[in-house]
């Protein structure tokens, strides 16, 4: 058991706190990173010494803090952690940007075992071909591998925006949402799904990529959530993001609905699975939640709740709530 391995209690009375959560032990996980060298001012691509992943696990009971556990501390990955979550086994899936010489970085997925060590059986990257050197490459999943010569459709996030979100769905699949390169433009958002073991997306196994795009979206302005509990044919995944509309350079918010099983857009939701919110929502910041997802509250119905902002046009933005039936 994970906590035993760290000399801590397995007391199941730990409260679930925040952030990523260990689905077995219900503990909170916070994360940070340590730099390994000095950053050249304003030029992170030249930060050749990279970063050390430093996932911090802190648990709390009713009286206070439980000691910290580090995931992967000291593992030099030359990368920037941007998202993580837990599979039902308690294994931690993390996604990071990889520091590459060019102006854009690749996304890299990796997984940690419940004892905090990296799971070298995860993913599909060939041994010793990764970004961090000969002894540090097993167990990675390339979400998007980019070289200076070739761009691959997938995630390519500008370093200064380093943010993505990672969820593990009810089938332990790994869903990633972040800024992507769509073959033409940078700065779009996309959702990709991968098998639980980090295998490549496969249409036959229902793990095909979700072609959800928010054109020229605002950084950090996206969210992804799944309805609780898995009921075949009813389970949904919602993705929200802010996208740039041209001409005029205005923003709009789009919410997509996907059927969780096959990850195909829900035809009846919005238009072909995409709901474009009206001009009341026009700016950055997107957060989603589900209200009454089990339908137990009478007279309310199931709602997807959007929390974002309305442009202040030079002053502070105005937070705004709205909600929609599903």
């Amino acid at each position, binding site marked *: 058991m994970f906590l035993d391995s760290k000399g801590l209690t397995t007391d199941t009375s730990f409260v679930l706190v*925040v952030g990523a959560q260990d689905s077995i032990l219900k503990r909170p*996980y916070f994360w940070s990173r340590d730099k390994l060298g000095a950053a050249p001012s304003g030029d992170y691509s030249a930060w050749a010494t990279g*970063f050390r992943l430093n996932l911090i696990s802190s648990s709390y009971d009713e009286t206070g803090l439980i000691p910290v556990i580090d995931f992967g501390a000291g593992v030099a990955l030359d990368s920037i952690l941007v998202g993580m979550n837990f599979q039902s086994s308690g294994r931690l899936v993390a996604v990071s940007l990889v520091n590459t010489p060019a102006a854009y970085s690749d996304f890299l997925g990796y997984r940690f075992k419940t004892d905090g060590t990296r799971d070298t059986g995860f993913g599909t990257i060939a041994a010793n071909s990764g970004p961090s050197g000969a002894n540090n490459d097993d167990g990675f999943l390339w979400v998007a591998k980019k070289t200076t010569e070739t761009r691959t459709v997938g995630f390519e996030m500008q370093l200064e925006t380093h943010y993505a*979100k990672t969820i593990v769905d009810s089938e332990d699949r790994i869903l990633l949402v972040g800024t992507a390169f769509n073959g033409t433009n940078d700065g779009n958002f996309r959702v990709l799904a991968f098998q639980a073991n980090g295998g490549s997306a496969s249409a036959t196994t229902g793990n095909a990529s979700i072609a959800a795009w928010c054109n020229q979206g605002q950084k950090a302005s996206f969210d992804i959530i799944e309805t609780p509990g898995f009921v075949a044919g009813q389970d949904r995944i919602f993705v929200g993001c802010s996208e740039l509309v041209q001409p005029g350079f205005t923003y709009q918010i789009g919410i997509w609905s996907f059927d969780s099983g096959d990850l195909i857009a829900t035809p009846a939701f919005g238009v072909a699975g995409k709901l474009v919110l009206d001009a009341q929502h026009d700016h950055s910041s997107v957060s989603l939640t589900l*209200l009454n997802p089990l339908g137990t509250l009478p007279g309310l119905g199931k709602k997807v*709740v959007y929390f974002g902002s309305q442009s202040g046009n030079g002053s*502070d933005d105005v937070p*705004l*709530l709205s909600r*929609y039936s599903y």
Partner: protein
Amino acid sequence: MPLSLALQSGLILAATPHLSGCFVGVFNNVESQSSETSPLTESSPSPDPSGGSGGSTPCTVPGDTGNGSLDTCFNESGAVAGYMKASEYSMNSFSHQNDHARGLVASDSLGNTYTLQRAAIADFAYDYTGTPSYLCQINGEGTQSACVTIAASGRPGNIPGALHVSAEDDIYVATAQYSRRTGMGAPSTGDFTIQIRVCKYKPSPFSVDLTFGTSGCVEDTNSISSDQSGLADGHIGPFG
């Protein structure tokens, strides 16, 4: 039955008065440096825990197909039915334009919605010193709200980090306190540390759970050392 008693008893009110535009049950914490969350200094009726549409004439959304229809029953009598601006649920002014202070939302099984965001500061200043975060509860109809102030620590930061509602409808909030400024315009070199504070709240009546930690909060005593690379270092969780 007095309104407050009815609410506290958890009964579904008939003809719940619409209070949109009013600031009902806005709580304000006393800011402090250590435990950060003092007992609430005000009390007021908690939001209708029913989460239902309530009232003698249940609200219905015309043409609602259940597939993306705007819920115009939410804040029905507000400035724009279906929407609720921060000015309608809190007296505080908020802003969350950038990814340092992304607004977060969550819901409980009672029909309440919770928002977490920082207080307004000058855009792009990125100096959050002394700036609190706010947690607000909005009831199912959007007719009542309550907010708590999550006190600033005196350090730059107090950035909303994570918002979670447990299966037991306990509300957990994590904020990050930075040791110095970060983000645009901040010095580009040098380490800084992050302290994480987690506070727990109860949904009904909406209040800090004083049995949790010290006065409802725990603070990470193991400051996280992190790099300073411009934006959003040391997030708490995946904003999940």
